[in-house]
């Protein structure tokens, strides 16, 4: 029987959740025995080449590209898992959710301490090649159907490991108190 296929992505995240996945230490050797990876920054496969069993989503949706990638994952993965606070509730990027988008951009490109003297022509990136920033940062489950959630910032390596093992083997997910944390 062929191995289950896993895909991963980082949307509006910091890659901390992917780091936490690597934090399973030598169990990574067991992991590559158990599953194959498809589209993922881990193996640098850029586009889906087959239907995947599990999609791990890090980060929420802050721009149109995030939404596109997330919908692509929903189409190509049987099970989608929101991994980490950003995927679940927007996380730190969502701190901007109460600030008008104009103010955010002006702070980033015109008025911020590192840009106010460095951008004399007062240019704001506005090219059709660039993804459009959304009005706010959205949790993934407000864009597509998400099947499971692994909280944490990042989720503890043991939580990601336990969840992957449970998904692959069909056994019940072990949730010891220490592994479910929101920070």
């Amino acid at each position, binding site marked *: 029987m062929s191995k289950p296929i896993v895909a991963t992505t980082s949307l509006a995240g910091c890659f901390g959740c992917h780091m936490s996945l690597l934090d399973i230490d030598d169990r990574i050797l067991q992991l590559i025995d158990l599953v194959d990876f498809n589209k993922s920054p881990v193996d640098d496969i850029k586009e889906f080449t087959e239907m995947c069993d599990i999609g791990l989503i890090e980060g929420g949706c802050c721009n149109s590209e995030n939404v596109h990638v997330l919908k692509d994952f929903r189409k190509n993965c049987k099970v989608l898992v*929101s991994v980490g*606070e950003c995927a*679940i*509730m*927007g*996380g*730190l990027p*969502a*701190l901007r*959710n*109460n600030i008008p988008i104009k103010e955010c951009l002006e702070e980033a490109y015109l008025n911020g301490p590192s840009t106010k003297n460095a951008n004399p022509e007062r240019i704001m990136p506005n090219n059709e090649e660039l993804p459009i920033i959304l009005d*706010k940062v959205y*949790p993934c*489950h*407000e864009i597509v159907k*998400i099947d*499971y*959630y*692994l*909280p944490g*910032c990042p989720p503890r390596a043991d939580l990601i490991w336990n969840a992957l093992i449970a998904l692959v083997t069909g056994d019940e997910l072990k*949730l010891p*108190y*220490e592994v*479910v*944390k*929101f*920070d």
Partner: protein
Amino acid sequence: MSEQVKFTIDGKACKTQKGTNLVEAAKENGIYIPVLCHLEGIKPAGSCRICNVKVNGRFMTACTTEVSDGMVIENITPEIQELRKIIVETLFVSGNHFCPACEKSGNCELQALGYRYQMMVPRFPYEFEEKEVDATSQKFYIDRNRCVLCKRCVRSVKTKDGKSIFAILGRGHQAVINIDHELANQLSDEEAQEVMNTCPVGSILKKERGYVDPIGSRKYDNKPIGSEIEQITNL
């Protein structure tokens, strides 16, 4: 000597002094009823509803209910546990609770209840409502993003001559906690720390403190809230 009353919680025979509220009575008998707005020693308000139990078949808030002889109390049933989880979830979506960026994380009672009831994601949409931070006080930040309006600070923090330092400003949906800066500035550092500890969430933070406890050694990192009263057997 005051009168003893007998009652049961989930079938377990319990007794206490007449006049005790249900939260304290359960605690005396080794049973944890979760609280968020209630604080031992101050008059109960019953505002957060997390301590909901069924008394003789009806929902009552345990903190505002005095135990009486023959009461039959249900505390851990799937229905009540689910109700408590829903309350925690509504509090998480109605405020802006960015746990990773909060100094209170790990020592926060709301977060600890989220852990106790294994909230993986709230079932309601996040509101992301705009709330103000007041950092003008010398001793405190008041971050209303995290406030759950439990009124613990309003009810318990008083000056030596009995004046309130905190009060509710506005009504209903617009209600916020406000602070009397003049009175607050007179507090000592120790008193200010006590005020911060009174807040169940990270809404009242003492200034010049920051992240004191490393991850792994904070209050709720390894032990669930309520485990000082009762071991969890059935979440």
